[in-house]
């Protein structure tokens, strides 16, 4: 679900095919019949944006048929915990949870906490705001328990305030009939999926869910994944071979770029960035951001080691290890917030490094208008992308809305090296790092990011040398001395990896994050990667062929943390430490040796902690985790069926309609996600919500997706002749019925219109897109691949021109996967006439822009 694996991860998909050959059932739930569906045993069509209703339907089915894995749920999840009496579910509060503060448009999370505990966000707050620095309690940071377990539980899980009963009640109206009504899925197909999943889960069998941006790119994106987590926890599929939830990432190293983050609000290893007011000291930061229990209990060690990696000898106990050199985030600096500030003249300069927002981001016109307000723009890429060329080659230039003479932005294009021209790692979906060796020097002026950032930093330091401005010390005191080699003075990437992997005071490499200390004796660029240079060997460069190992292939690459290939694999053994079944044996307790052992993976658990270990009252960190609690990053060691903290939009997923939808939410009076981030302004007009006057002007559901032949915003594929010829032009996919309804000709042209703009595409009429019956009416889908832009060999309009910016407030990702539109035959008008067409639509829909 939420993915199209055969098309987007064809090489990874070979393993799905292998599983299929061994009898696995493959189900694909997707608005279209794709190349993945062609290989699946069952394709279930679904209305884009209704995945929570579907998954909630599965939860409902699991309860109705008593198909949940009782022992797993009882011991390994927080289903037994009892909630406070003041907690209110969406069933009680018209689609909201208790704690909703309408002035702040945020939830106060106190009532979500386990009974007899206090809920806190990172930053020590009680209101879970999403858009202000440091107050996002991502993961389980903000939940400190006193005894390592919820203090008030009911092991029989029958108490009406225990989490199991709350969850059961929460999804009680997500019946097969409701799924059909909301999602448009034929009831029998939905039930087939539910049945197969239930039959294939339990002691003897496991089922896996693979998702991608089809789930994340929604205003309810994070809750989509939470819904899958609930399904998989109830069925006992997490931490077990053949189970799990796999996030198929959007490009080859996006996992790496969140681990060693390019995100504004986290430090390497998902440590939160500090907040200026609430965290005046290192110790206060640790107190507010680190739960005392579980793997995060050692936050201070991870943080001090990071600071030592960055500031080396300058970082001492006296200056709190240069904690105050870290930037403090003072607001929402995510991509869209930055572009909007840029649009209002608040950003002077911008680096677009391997990113092409004028094609890849939502509301691409807004992106270009924003860029035109910069003083300077630096683009590092393989080609002069649409973003680099925005000032002379763009729809606004074409239409005459903007002229190059009027754009004051000074644009620098810095050519980049390709991945074959540099050393480095790719980190994939399963947290596996694979080293790649440089095959040839980059041509001309092309340089790797490492080269460019290192020498930029070096030059800045040279300019600042001798400065006594305290502000400059943060840069001057950095350890910035990687060895360089070759004609381009290329920094040694392995030296950087060594710094990331961590060293002890004597210079030797650490084995794992357990060896990190909070006294300045260790340095480590990323605690989750600690040990990647264990024994002085680049573990990620290991390439023992699969034929020389068992299926776990532990000698190929390296996974964080600690080279654990299946995360939480303690859960593959029962509470006593024995495998749930012989067939699913993976990790188990060897009583003779007194340690956890495995078929070939690293146990994701302290090696010598016995299954019957119980923490004492004063125990902290990993010592506070019981011997039968596999989810060690949570302070209670449990899988969270219900999330008492960490999310801005609720402890449980609930179906809300997408921002733009032809339909109303039949489940709750609350129509849309209450915490979603909207930006109503002239450049970002929204369509009226489903059922409101004017919504019928854009009657069709629009979804965007990818094709195998192209890659993201096209800079790496539309510029390559062999790929450009495979899919040369933007095309839309419509059903024969919609084609007839709107007079569209197969192979001809169509114009797709939204309140943002109108674009044109070739027409592909296909039965792989079918209308669905939703709430008694036909739902028609217009599908658009999003790869095209006005540059390169294969050119075309960009699908993202049509989309508004509307974000999931947990992670600031925009709702690319669903919007509404109209479609009409023929090419789009040019110039002034295009604007007039869009104006006419806006008028009819009552949209102010």
């Amino acid at each position, binding site marked *: 679900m939420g993915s199209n694996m055969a*098309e987007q991860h*064809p090489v990874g998909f070979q393993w799905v095919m292998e599983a299929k050959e061994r009898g696995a059932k493959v189900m694909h739930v997707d608005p279209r019949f794709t190349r993945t569906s062609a*290989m699946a045993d069952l394709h279930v069509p679904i209305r884009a944006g209704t995945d929570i209703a579907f998954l909630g339907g599965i939860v409902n089915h699991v309860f109705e048929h008593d198909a949940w894995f009782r022992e797993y749920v009882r011991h390994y999840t927080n289903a037994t915990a009892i909630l406070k009496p003041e907690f209110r579910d969406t069933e009680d509060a018209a689609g909201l949870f208790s704690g909703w503060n309408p002035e702040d448009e945020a939830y106060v999370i106190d009532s979500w906490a386990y009974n007899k505990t206090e809920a806190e966000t990172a930053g020590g707050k009680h209101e879970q705001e999403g858009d202000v620095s440091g107050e996002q309690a991502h993961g389980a940071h903000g939940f400190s328990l006193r005894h390592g377990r919820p203090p008030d539980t009911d092991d029989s899980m029958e108490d009406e305030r225990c989490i199991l009963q709350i969850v059961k009640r929460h999804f009680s109206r997500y019946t097969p009939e409701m799924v059909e009504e909301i999602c448009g899925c034929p009831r029998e197909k939905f039930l087939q999926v539910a049945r197969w999943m239930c039959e294939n889960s339990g002691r003897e069998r496991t089922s896996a869910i693979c998702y991608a941006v089809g789930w994340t790119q929604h205003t309810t994106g994070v809750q989509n994944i939470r819904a899958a987590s609930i399904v998989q926890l109830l069925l006992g599929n997490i931490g077990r071979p053949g189970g799990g939830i796999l996030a198929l990432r959007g490009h080859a190293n996006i996992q790496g770029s969140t681990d060693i983050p390019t995100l504004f609000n986290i430090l390497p290893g998902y440590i939160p960035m500090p907040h200026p007011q609430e965290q005046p000291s290192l110790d206060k930061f640790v107190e507010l951001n680190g739960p005392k229990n579980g793997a995060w209990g050692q936050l201070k060690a991870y943080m001090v080691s990071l600071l030592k990696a960055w500031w080396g000898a300058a970082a001492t106990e006296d200056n709190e290890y240069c904690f105050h050199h870290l930037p403090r985030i003072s607001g929402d600096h995510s991509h869209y917030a930055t572009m909007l500030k840029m649009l209002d003249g608040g950003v002077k300069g911008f680096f677009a490094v391997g990113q092409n927002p004028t094609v890849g981001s939502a509301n691409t016109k807004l992106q270009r208008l924003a860029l035109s307000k910069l003083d300077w723009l630096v683009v590092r890429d393989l080609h002069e992308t649409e973003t680099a060329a925005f000032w002379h080659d763009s729809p606004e230039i074409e239409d005459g809305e903007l002229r190059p003479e009027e754009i004051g932005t000074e644009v620098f294009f810095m050519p980049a090296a390709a991945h074959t021209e540099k050393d480095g790692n790719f980190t994939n979906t399963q947290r596996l790092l694979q080293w790649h060796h440089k095959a040839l020097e980059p041509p001309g002026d092309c340089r790797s990011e490492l080269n460019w950032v290192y020498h930029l930093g070096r030059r800045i330091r040279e300019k600042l040398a001798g400065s006594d401005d305290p502000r400059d010390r943060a840069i001057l005191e950095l350890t910035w001395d990687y060895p360089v080699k070759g004609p381009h003075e290329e920094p040694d990437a392995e030296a950087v990896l060594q710094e990331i992997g961590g060293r002890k005071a004597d210079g030797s490499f650490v084995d794992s994050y357990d060896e990190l200390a909070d006294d300045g004796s260790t340095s480590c660029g990323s605690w989750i990667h600690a040990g990647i240079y264990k024994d002085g060997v680049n573990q990620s460069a290991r390439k023992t062929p699969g034929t020389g190992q068992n299926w776990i292939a532990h000698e190929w690459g390296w996974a964080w943390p600690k080279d654990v290939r299946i995360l939480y694999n303690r859960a593959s053994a029962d509470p006593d430490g024995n495998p749930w079944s012989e067939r699913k044996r993976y990790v188990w307790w060897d009583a003779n040796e007194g340690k956890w052992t495995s078929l070939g993976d690293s146990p994701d658990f302290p090696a010598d902690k016995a299954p019957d270990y119980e923490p004492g009252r004063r125990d902290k960190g990993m010592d506070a985790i019981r011997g039968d609690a596999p989810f060690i990053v949570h302070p209670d060691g449990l899988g969270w069926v219900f999330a008492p903290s960490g999310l801005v939009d609720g402890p449980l997923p609930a179906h809300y309609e997408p921002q733009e939808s032809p339909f109303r939410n039949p489940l709750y009076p609350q129509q849309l996600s209450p915490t979603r981030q909207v930006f109503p302004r002239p450049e970002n007009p929204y369509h009226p919500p489903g059922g409101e006057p004017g919504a019928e002007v854009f009657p069709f559901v629009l979804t965007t997706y990818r*094709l*195998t*032949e192209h890659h993201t915003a096209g800079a790496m594929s539309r510029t390559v002749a*062999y790929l450009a010829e495979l899919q040369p032009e933007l095309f839309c996919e419509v059903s024969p019925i919609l084609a007839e309804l709107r007079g569209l000709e*197969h*192979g001809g042209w169509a114009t797709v219109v939204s309140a943002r703009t109108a674009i044109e595409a070739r027409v592909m009429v296909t039965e792989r897109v079918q209308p669905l019956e939703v709430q008694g009416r036909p739902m028609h889908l217009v599908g658009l691949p999003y790869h095209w832009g006005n540059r390169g060999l294969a050119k075309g309009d960009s699908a993202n021109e049509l989309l508004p910016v509307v974000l999931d407030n947990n992670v600031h990702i925009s709702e690319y996967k669903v919007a509404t539109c109209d479609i009409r035959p023929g090419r789009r008008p040019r110039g002034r006439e295009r604007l007039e067409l869009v104006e006419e639509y806006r008028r009819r829909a009552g949209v102010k822009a």
Partner: protein
Amino acid sequence: MKLETSAWPDSYGADAKPRVGFFTDTSVCIGCKACEVACKEWNRIPDSPKGFTGNSYDNTVDLGANTWRHVAFVEKRVPVDADGGASLVEAAERGGLVEEAGVNTYQEGDGLRWLMSSDVCKHCTHAACLEVCPTGALFRTEFGTVVVQEDVCNGCGYCVPACPFGVLDRREDDGRVWKCTLCYDRLKDDQEPACAQACPTNSIQFGELAELRARAEGRLAQLTAAGQADARLYLADSDDGIGGGGAFFLLLDDPEVYGLPPDPVDTTRDLGSIWAAAGAAALALGAGLAAAVLGGRG
């Protein structure tokens, strides 16, 4: 199974290698086109953009001088079963086929079938292109494959209509004929062809032809047992019109559906009998003339 061709292995003697080829199992093709791109990259074939064709996801159209691997996409409705009252679940189950055999349907669902298949030169056992080539540019290699030498080919084009599959084609700006070499240069270095190496699902399998034929029989049996009644092998029979192909296929429907000829025949097969018939006709004509002339005298 007769694998011998006219020139292999005899003309090579001790230098003959085992005959190799492709088994393309289209049931596991995911339509990714890695084969098309790998082939073009390895052989430095010029790009040949044709624009948006509207022919499903196939903008490559067919094999030619600049396309030596071509992935076909066919979307079609699957006919409704006789007992059409079956629920969607049952249809899905039937479509899902049998748990026991552990093999399920391919490229079908929702009553819709999306066939995907990677086409290539068949390296025929009886290769008409080889027979008609006047310069000897086309030759049979020690591996039993058919290769055209670009430094010998004079672009006469005789081979183009000779091929029953329409594989051979002249490059417009160049004049010569180009086609799949089964990566002859890689074979000489003990490497598999680029397309086979790139294929992520092992739809394209390279190996010794005898072994591939046996493997294909096994795969067909597996699919048939699982209820995939329309699965069949194509060009795996030494007695067919081309003597079996060095590249053969497992298809899930009639060959015509994939744009392949249903019963291809080596176009030079009947040359012998054609010449014999012509000779006999000439003799008869000659005899008749002679009779007329001689009888006319006197």
